[in-house]
């Protein structure tokens, strides 16, 4: 689990969930958080949008598509707000998504995505409108170039925090990066009255 597979570039059709402010309670309702592992959460991703109380399917797009064909989720404005549960990116990735696109992506969710190799891509309203207008389109995401290419050929550059990007591209492990700093951390504790 320690090293992420490096991500470089991939193409996929998008899946649009146009609702604004999709929060992490929608992505995975709290009652599924009693798990003690990260695996198998894809089946409860957007559970209450996809299933009736008796467990039968609702006619929701997430139940109708082939997830391997739609690896880029385009959400409405302001995606991923709410709870800090990392179960949200775990569930989205287990469902099959590799990237999330929105006009705004909430802080903690974004940080959680980057730690797991789910790429958060923030785009302008204009680009977002183009994605929503053609929800069947295929896009290419190239992390090496920080580029998102739409089906009509529009190329947009997006920003990913430099260190997180490096972790994703090179498979650098953030905990390992911190562990390497233990001697400095110990020195800091000594000089700041924080030693055990």
């Amino acid at each position, binding site marked *: *689990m*320690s090293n992420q597979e490096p991500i470089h570039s991939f193409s996929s059709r998008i899946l649009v969930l146009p*609702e*604004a*402010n999709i*929060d992490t*309670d*929608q992505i995975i*309702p*709290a*009652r599924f*958080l*009693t*798990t*003690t*592992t*990260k695996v198998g959460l894809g089946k409860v991703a957007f559970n*209450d949008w996809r299933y009736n*109380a008796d467990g039968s399917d609702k006619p929701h797009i997430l139940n109708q598509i082939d997830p391997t064909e739609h690896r880029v989720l385009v959400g409405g*404005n*302001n995606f991923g*707000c*709410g*709870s*800090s*549960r*990392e179960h949200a990116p775990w569930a989205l990735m287990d469902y099959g998504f590799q990237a999330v696109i929105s006009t*705004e992506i*909430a*802080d*903690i969710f974004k*940080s*959680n995505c980057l*730690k*797991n190799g789910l790429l958060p891509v923030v785009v302008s309203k204009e680009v977002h409108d183009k994605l929503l207008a053609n929800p069947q389109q295929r896009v290419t995401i190239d992390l090496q170039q920080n580029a998102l290419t739409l089906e009509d050929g529009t190329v947009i550059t997006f920003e990913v*925090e*430099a*260190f997180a990007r*490096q972790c994703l591209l090179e498979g650098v492990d*953030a*905990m390992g*990066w*911190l*562990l390497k*700093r*233990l001697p*400095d*951390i110990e020195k*800091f*504790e000594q000089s*700041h009255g*924080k030693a*055990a």
Partner: protein
Amino acid sequence: MTAKSLFEKVWDAHVVEPEGADKPAVLYIDLHLVHEVTSPQAFSELDARGLKVRRPDRTFATLDHSIPTLAPDADGNRPYVTAQAKKQVETLEANAANNGLRLFGYDAENRGVVHVIGPEMGLTQPGYTVVCGDSHTSTHGAFGCIAFGIGTSEVGHVLATQCLAQRKPKTMRITVDGKLQPGVTGKDVALTVIATLGFSGGTGYALEYAGDVIRELDMEGRMTVCNLSIEAGARCGMIAPDQKTIDWLRGRQYVPQGEAYDEAAKGWLALASDEGAVFDKEIRIDGSTIEPMATWGTSPDQGAAIVRGVPVAGNEDQERALKYMGFTGGEAREVEKVDVVFIGSCTNGRMADLRAAAAIMKGRKVAPGVRALVVPGSEWVRIEAEKEGLHEIFLEAGAEWRLPGCSMCIAMNGDFVLPGQLAVSTSNRNFEGRQGPGSRTVLASPATAAASAVAGHVADPRQFMALEEA
């Protein structure tokens, strides 16, 4: 010397390695709070790497999210919602034992909701950096801490190194001037701030709350304000320590005692933003115009003064929210028949909150057909409330009195609102289904929640307060 803000002072004192263009800062964490839901996978990660918790003395665990709030049966069996919830609790018990962590478990006198017990025991101290795998960690900012929620991967980072890789956020000062009207509480201030900033207006910022209204709030009210910072998307919310902070913390279990306390307090008072400190953004709110608030939609920023009624939708999102809530827009709040009232959570589950609710419920009855649940934020709150007889007021009014926990705030322990039911809750999120699939939530203060329980509909609490004064 350049003038520094409260945030900058605390941040700078915790930088182990400064940030650069290609790398985040290494930020030292003074206090790490852990609970059963967001920690198991982090401990597994440590196990997989053959690591132990590096600073068990700075790491404290509690049980709150998935635990039942009903008493165990005669054989001591607790009514867990599922076997998996029980296993989650046992996993934390095992991880704590295995790593030598202090776990405030069922037998501890201080078990409770993580953001209630931290300050209560004085684990939270001014100038600290505090993290927890829970977004409402911003609560601890009321004591002048940089306190923020982290994901499970980061929980692992802190367990292993006591540090986090972090980029410094921008700063925003929110000044609430003037004087609050009688009957207006910290929760109403917080809901007003969020409505002003909007759902994501705080994204990328560390907030500092200032102004006369904030100074006048008691520590409980300040915690409520900081608690809700995340609902505007902010990284954290802070308030400069003052004499109130120092008086409130004095003598608590984990703070320095005696002269050492006075010495520490001097340093805490010096944390306040210097005159001339520059913020990336400044906002002013006139506190005297704030009235008791209630949300009408499905995000915490969709709130308005109760007396103004439900607003008419101004855009598609608001329309969708109103539709989910079953409101048409433009109606008075009194038409909203209430099914459930929930008083509790890390937002409003403290003594001051329970007292405010009890003051309204005293000598009155919960309206027929309303289920009212009062859940103290911690064992300490439960015991104090019972000493004061608050539980009797609630029980006599027809409300349920439970054991401490997150309960209906997150609705993962078996306490939940039924599909379609309308709940007035003192918690922090009114997302679709947050309190149970199909549940509809109105966020409000403890006084408003109690008033709504008694009235049977969403009600301005001042009508009950005025009665008492007459």
